[in-house]
């Protein structure tokens, strides 16, 4: 880990544009949502699902893509990106750069989601519904683990040159989600090839999907009648694969006036 890179990643938050987005995230979004909720009748399970709008995987993903993406290797916009040619002329291992950016990004996402959750809780308390958003140990652990994973995924995507990264990500999303959903809507009888085509396509897309996005939820591991190891192994291996790909890609990238 490189202290300079981590500090620099945090300093990036102080840019006016990023600060505004941060305020939107941490203050405006919770206020708007709570204002809306205060007009709704209080229904207990709605509030449980509402927790996902506060610290669920979706929010963690949005935070990671908003605050971390431009900080890795995407130097297309010089105003936003970093001058990697100058950075890599310094005595820095590129894998240290990736790991430092990943961990700094992880800390940033946890900080953003954590602050947002505190604001949500405070606002709910003010309208007398504080008891309806409980943040327990499992939630905190889920935030930490999913932030670790999504920032590693962001590090991987943005370690590629920007266009290739975008194409790769869009392609993976298409092949893992959109294409198989469309394909599943076609009845067996309409396919020219009869047999297990649906199953084959679904197996491939399922495999791709598990590499593309696999947020972990620790909830089932408490009081479960059967412990399943696959999600844990999938999570750990995805983490390692993302970082490994990011390191390999960055090691092979050229950074001389080509960024």
């Amino acid at each position, binding site marked *: 880990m*490189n*202290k*300079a*890179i981590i*500090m*620099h990643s945090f*300093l*990036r938050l*102080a*840019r*006016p544009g990023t600060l505004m987005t941060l305020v939107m995230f941490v203050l405006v979004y919770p206020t708007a949502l709570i204002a809306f909720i205060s007009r709704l009748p209080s229904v207990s399970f709605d509030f449980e699902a509402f927790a996902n709008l506060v610290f669920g995987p979706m929010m963690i993903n949005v935070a990671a893509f908003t605050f971390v993406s431009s900080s890795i290797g995407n130097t297309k916009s*010089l*105003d936003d990106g*970093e*001058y990697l*040619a*100058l*950075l*890599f*002329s*310094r*005595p*820095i*291992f590129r894998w240290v750069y990736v790991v430092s950016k990943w961990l700094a990004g992880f800390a940033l996402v946890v900080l953003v989601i954590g602050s947002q959750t505190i604001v949500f809780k405070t606002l709910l308390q003010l309208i007398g519904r504080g008891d309806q958003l409980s943040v327990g140990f499992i939630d905190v652990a889920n935030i930490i683990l999913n932030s670790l994973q999504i920032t590693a995924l962001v590090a991987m995507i943005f370690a590629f040159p920007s266009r290739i990264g975008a194409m790769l990500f869009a392609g993976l999303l298409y092949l893992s989600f959109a294409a198989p959903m469309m394909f599943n809507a076609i009845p067996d009888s309409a396919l020219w090839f009869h047999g297990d085509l649906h199953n084959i396509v679904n197996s491939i897309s399922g495999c791709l999907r598990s590499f593309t996005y696999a947020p972990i939820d620790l909830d089932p591991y408490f009081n479960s009648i059967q412990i399943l190891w696959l999600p844990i192994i999938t999570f750990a291996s995805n983490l390692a694969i993302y970082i490994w790909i990011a390191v390999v890609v960055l090691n*092979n990238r*050229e*950074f*001389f*006036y080509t960024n």
Partner: protein
Amino acid sequence: MSQQTAFIQINNLSKTYGLFFKFRALTDINLNIHKGETFGLIGPNGAGKTTLMGCLLGLLKPSAGTILIDNKSVNEISVKALTGFMPERSNFDAWMIVENFLHYHHMLARQPESTANEDVTKALADVGLEPEVGKRLIRKLSRGMLQRLGLAQLLLGKPDLCFLDEPTSGMDPLGMSLVRELLFRWKQEGKTVVINSHHLDQVEKVCDRVAFIDNGKIRSIEELVPTAQTKQIFVIQWAKPYPNEDLVRKVAQDNQVECQSVSDGSARFLLTSKTQGSNLLRAFVGINTQIEQASYEHKDLVELFRRNNATQ
């Protein structure tokens, strides 16, 4: 100089861009740069100078051939630790405050934290930036100031090997003379410097050797300081009364310097080292002749540049 061990060794270096439509940017480059040498890369636009510098910095991967710096790969951490780089494009983090940016590079260059404030202040002063500039946002700096900032970040790493890509582009005359002074100082400190510049007069004044690159190939390497192999003309002019020709030739002979010609109060000598020039001057001052001017008759780089381009 050729007897010295080469500090930078480039052997059969080639670099090709593109996956499907290949473009050869460098072809079979062989070059040795010695420790303490100031080396210039000159050539027309698109000749491959920048690519060569990118390869030397380890930021571009050679398609063939090898580059060794201090007998190590360019990507060795120990090589990077002694390298400083001033890029042509000053696309620094525009949102940062100058001092923070320099502190960041001080840390990246693995310099001790205890000296950070002192080093940053000194770097700013060395490149002629006022301390109040340190408090400004980088986006508020002029082009010339950005160039100076580029030099300042290079200085922070206290490098032994400096790569300067168009160091004076966008600089005012004061900035240009500052770069020249810095380069002379580095030469005295024994730093190895590789400059990529279009300002031939600048290169001519500071470089020991230059390589003419065109179309990805080194066309020629020219010595700009005298050596045993490449003698250089040293011209002395006297004020009246002029010393007579015999006296001039005798002093030259005493100092083992070949006198080429003597006429109208001036003489041309062929030197094989720079110390010969200072010895000669000392001798003429010793016999009370009044020296008006003394200088090397520099090779005209513009002429060499034209000649190299014409021989393609």
